[in-house]
């Protein structure tokens, strides 16, 4: 009888593992993308830790169709806890530091692509995915995470507040400052990486 019970537990565990694998495998690219945008190094470790925690909590997944978002939420929790361990103080960007900058106006004023009829569009399309990642990684993590979660992974602000365990108002303020800093860094990066060189040859 004991052997039969042990056998049935083994079968159940295997079935659980199979089900987990079946649901998780298609989500790996999205999870890895998120991790690579949240951290410069250690994205794979971050994904592995999230997978481990997800497996332990597999019984709490109620809706299989929501597996991707469930896994991403766990990954962000791991990221947040790790960030808290690593950083003692929060590096806040002051409003004055970013408020006056407008990428839209800077592009008009500097006009880095004088022959372009679609200056702003052409500026954006000069950025490849790795360039965008590099710009994101220049932002302090507390600003980077809300931007990535909202504008790249499509989470709503309330969800982001819950995931990062900060008040809603804090997320809104960080989104605002993060967006402005992101625009500043896009401009700086385009100049440093000579991203626009040769794009205006006619």
């Amino acid at each position, binding site marked *: 009888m004991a052997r039969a019970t042990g056998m049935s537990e083994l079968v159940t565990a295997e079935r659980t593992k199979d089900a987990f694998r079946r649901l998780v495998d298609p989500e790996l*690219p999205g999870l890895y993308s998120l991790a690579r945008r949240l951290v410069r190094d250690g994205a794979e470790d971050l994904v592995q830790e999230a997978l481990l925690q997800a497996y332990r909590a597999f019984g709490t997944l109620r809706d299989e169709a929501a597996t991707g978002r469930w896994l991403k939420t766990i990954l962000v929790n791991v990221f947040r806890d790790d960030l808290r361990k690593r950083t003692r103080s929060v590096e806040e960007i002051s409003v004055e530091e970013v408020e006056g900058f407008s990428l839209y106006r800077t592009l008009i004023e500097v006009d880095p692509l004088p022959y372009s009829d679609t200056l702003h569009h052409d500026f954006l399309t000069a950025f490849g995915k790795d360039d965008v990642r590099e710009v994101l990684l220049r932002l302090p993590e507390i600003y980077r995470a809300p931007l990535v979660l909202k504008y790249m992974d499509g989470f709503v602000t309330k969800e982001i507040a819950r995931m990062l365990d900060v008040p809603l108002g804090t997320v809104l303020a960080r989104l605002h400052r993060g967006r402005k800093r992101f625009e500043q860094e896009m401009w700086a990066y385009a100049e440093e990486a000579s991203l626009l060189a040769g794009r205006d040859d006619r």
Partner: protein
Amino acid sequence: MTETQGLIPCSEAVRKLWDYLDNAVPPEDQEKVDKHLSFCRTCCGELEFAKELRAFLASGSALELPVDVKARLERFVQEL
């Protein structure tokens, strides 16, 4: 564009644009932004650029999962 015309200044309109696009501004602020945009061509340009930047960010959401990383992650799941 100045406050003297009874409109919010450009700085305030621009500050609210992304939240405006997110439908995250209170109705009274939405009205102020709408009114400002109906008069200010520069801020309409800011709005269009904000839309394009948002779409640009959303379109770049998937980074490539290298084959070796994929294999290691699948093996990790296999061995849980």
